[in-house]
């Protein structure tokens, strides 16, 4: 079997499996998995910049929240239909990423991390500052009546699960297509040795800018979908916690692998879920598990699989 077929089989199999689970999972896990798929889409977006381009951002909550509020504010205050609201959310995140990239990409390494963190903090404070429209930390609930897309009521668990799956499938396939395309391969090369890519005649700055826009757009799509599917928008989603989470998910699952973000998100979600059943110190359990993983699988779960078994894993 050719590597290309294996890749299709694995990722297609994952999506088919998630679809099959829709019919068999008990309600509790069904709801969890819908949430995990949306968050994993966010992680897929983060991974484009961090895992494939090698740029460590601590400001992606800005894009996630831009998607969420870019969707929720016009929907809530202006009565914009859900479909259009998703697009305004996506546009807000992609636009912000395009602008921020112009500034942040003047820096590299730790400076890049700090600049992205600072902009995200500014975004978070902006949400809080305009509390009258954003309702700040408390947030606001989106009426079930407004959560209707093409006549489908997204507040119903079944529709919500399938919509989350559709979003995740789109993100996963977009990422797969990207890393198999010349543009994506050049991003990987930038991660490995930027100076060499430049001396092969590529505009590396433009490539990194493009990566940031794609990453921001995917993150914003996830943020917009999250608000619409779960009926809530709040400032927490713009806080630094939501910049750190995708980094952890991607590190756990395997940076620079297409499937890793999903595995990491799933793993961490259930790690916290299960350990909080056992003890109130669930963050300690989670922390120990994370340390064990970084010791024994420093490239993340999927990264380790690629190193040991499946060298073809994209």
């Amino acid at each position: 079997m050719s590597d290309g077929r294996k890749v299709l089989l694995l990722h297609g199999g994952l999506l088919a499996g998630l679809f099959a689970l829709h019919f068999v999972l008990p309600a509790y896990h069904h709801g969890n998995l819908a949430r995990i798929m949306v968050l994993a889409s966010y992680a897929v977006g983060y991974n484009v910049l961090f895992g494939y381009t090698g740029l460590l951002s601590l400001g992606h909550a800005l894009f996630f929240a831009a998607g969420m509020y870019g969707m929720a504010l016009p929907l809530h205050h202006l009565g914009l239909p859900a479909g259009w609201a998703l697009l305004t959310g996506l546009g807000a995140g992609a636009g912000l990423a395009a602008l921020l990239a112009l500034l942040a990409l003047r820096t590299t390494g730790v400076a890049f991390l700090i600049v992205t963190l600072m902009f995200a903090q500014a975004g978070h404070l902006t949400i809080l500052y305009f509390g009258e429209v954003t309702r700040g930390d408390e947030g606001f609930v989106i009426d079930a009546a407004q959560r209707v897309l093409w006549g489908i009521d997204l507040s119903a668990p079944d529709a919500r699960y399938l919509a989350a799956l559709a979003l995740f499938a789109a993100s996963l396939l977009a990422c797969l297509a990207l890393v198999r395309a010349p543009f994506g391969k050049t991003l990987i090369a930038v991660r490995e040795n930027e100076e060499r890519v430049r001396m092969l005649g590529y505009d590396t700055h433009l490539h990194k800018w493009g990566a940031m826009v794609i990453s921001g757009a995917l993150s914003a799509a996830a943020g917009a979908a999250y608000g619409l599917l779960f009926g809530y928008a709040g400032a927490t989603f713009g806080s630094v916690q939501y910049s750190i989470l995708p980094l952890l998910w991607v590190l756990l699952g395997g940076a620079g692998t297409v499937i890793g973000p999903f595995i990491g998100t799933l793993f961490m979600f259930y790690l916290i879920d299960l350990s909080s059943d056992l003890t109130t110190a669930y963050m300690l359990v989670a922390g120990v598990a994370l340390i064990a993983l970084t010791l024994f699988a420093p490239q993340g779960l999927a990264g380790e699989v690629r190193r040991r078994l499946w060298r073809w894993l994209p």
Partner: protein
Amino acid sequence: MTLLETRGLSKHFAGLQAVAGVDLAVTEGEVRALIGPNGAGKTTLVGMICGRIAPSGGSVRFDGRDITALPAHRRIRRGMAYTFQITSVFARLPVAENVALAARRHRRGADVDLAVHAALDRVGLGAHIDREAGDLSYGHQRLLELAMALAQEPRLLILDEPTQGLSEAEIAAFKALVRELAGTTTILLIEHNMSVVMETADRVTVLDLGTVLAEGTPREIHGNAAVQAAYLGTGADA
């Protein structure tokens, strides 16, 4: 026709004059060797030509146009290729992908594979196509750099000590390759190995302390007393 021309090209690093007012003219199709003792400014000079290093003064013309203000990638796109003195390949990517990155700048699809195979066969690395570049021996990584340059099909090929770390057989193959390219590709070759210089170069430029000490045919340079003193005396037949 002059393909490459520098005028008064200079570079100083915090007080150290690495290159001082170099005028250089390379004719299309020529193989030009650039020699000189360690620290003479050779790498700095070609770095300013291909855009890696910003000059402190002077200008560079390529193919009849002033490119002094162009960033490196735009110069490369105009038909330059550069191989690093300190090997710089994509160590964690397969050999094939290293070369494909170079080829993809002006090719797509199956054309890329053809160019990759052709370039690797040309430098004798065809058998290593699927290996990770970082697993290659030092000498083979130098050859990979060369394959990456060939895959770009440049008009001007700038090679910074390409034979460093190669075996005798590989050096002989390298000489043959340069002779094969000569006439169609213009080559600027920084080289410490005098047999390579003598057998491949049309003309030789000697750099010392950042300035051009002498220029001429390999034979003229070999007999030049000043060059002997500055350079050849310290290991002419290395």
